[in-house]
């Protein structure tokens, strides 16, 4: 018995010590890892939350996006016809340059003949970008005259949006030609919100499901 008791005692002590040591180890290691785990969990939840479909938030975000897309800086190069628009009132571009098959103009009237890689200095001189163009003739991606419902549907449809996937659409907010809207050259307004705010609304709209506002 004594031996047994002694054995039990000897056995019990190491168990307690292991338990205490184990607790200490877990506390010590926990000091470094717990906040990281918490942060990961929070990010993960946030990510899944941000991708969770929500038609109300999505539509609300698109209505902000729509304000930018209908501003002259965006709409002027997404005309209903085959001539780009120009100016704050989105009138037909002087000289009537034509879209052409690839969206880059025709013959002696190609976009890059006047539009340089960067803005030309001076009031109302040609704005610039290395890849200045309209959408191509086989997918015109018209903004002009589109209602919020029509435009949201069109943008989410790969057969009408330049065959862009959801990921490509998300990345498009940072496309160089899109960014050029916020560097329009002298005498031109910028879109009605910052690029940061536009990008946030654009991402929210798509990540929350890319819903279209109701048809009017």
């Amino acid at each position, binding site marked *: 018995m004594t031996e047994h008791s002694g054995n039990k005692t000897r056995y019990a002590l190491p168990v307690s010590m292991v338990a205490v040591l184990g607790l200490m180890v877990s506390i010590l290691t926990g000091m470094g890892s717990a906040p990281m785990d918490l942060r990961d969990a929070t990010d993960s939840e946030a990510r899944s939350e941000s991708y969770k479909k929500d038609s109300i938030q999505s539509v609300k975000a698109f209505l902000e996006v729509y304000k930018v897309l209908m501003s002259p800086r965006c709409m002027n190069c997404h005309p209903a016809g085959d001539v780009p628009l120009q100016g704050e009132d989105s009138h037909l571009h*002087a*000289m*009537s*340059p*034509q879209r052409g098959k690839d969206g880059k103009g*025709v*013959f*002696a*009237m*190609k976009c*890059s*003949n*006047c539009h*340089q*890689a960067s803005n*030309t200095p*001076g009031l*109302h*001189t*040609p704005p610039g970008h290395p890849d200045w163009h309209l959408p191509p003739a086989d997918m015109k991606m018209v903004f002009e005259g589109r209602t919020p419902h029509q435009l949201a549907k069109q943008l989410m449809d790969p057969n009408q949006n330049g065959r862009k996937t959801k990921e490509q659409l998300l990345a498009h907010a940072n496309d160089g030609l899109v960014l050029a809207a916020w560097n329009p050259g002298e005498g031109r307004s910028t879109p009605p919100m910052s690029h940061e705010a536009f990008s946030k609304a654009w991402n929210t709209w798509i990540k929350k499901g890319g819903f279209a506002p109701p048809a009017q």
Partner: protein
Amino acid sequence: MPLLWAIRDVIGLTGTKYGCGVAQCGACVVHLNGEAVRSCVTKVSRAEGQKVVTIEGLSGNNDHPVQTAWQEIDVPQCGYCHSGQIMSAAVLLRENPNPSDEDIDAAMSGNICRCGTYLRIRKAIHLAAELQQKGKG
């Protein structure tokens, strides 16, 4: 420095004209790698190491089909815009050897003529297309 400045003031080729200075009139059109760029807004750095052709270099003896047609029809009045007109027309005929009136309008709508010689320009481009197809210039 704009390419036009380099062409006219540095190199001394004055056939290319200064019109508006903001890419609105077409008087300054030259060929940059075959494209009808407006040299008044084209930085000379864009042309560095590239092929630039001005009206002086369009043909060996002023006998490009467009130049021949221009003389045949007697297109110019004051003549100031016509080096630009001819350079634009040459690009049109290279890309479309048999242009319709609509094609001509689409190609030439950026070249303004203060004398209003547009009808003769269109007629001369049709003639130039015929000359080009016959191998004459």
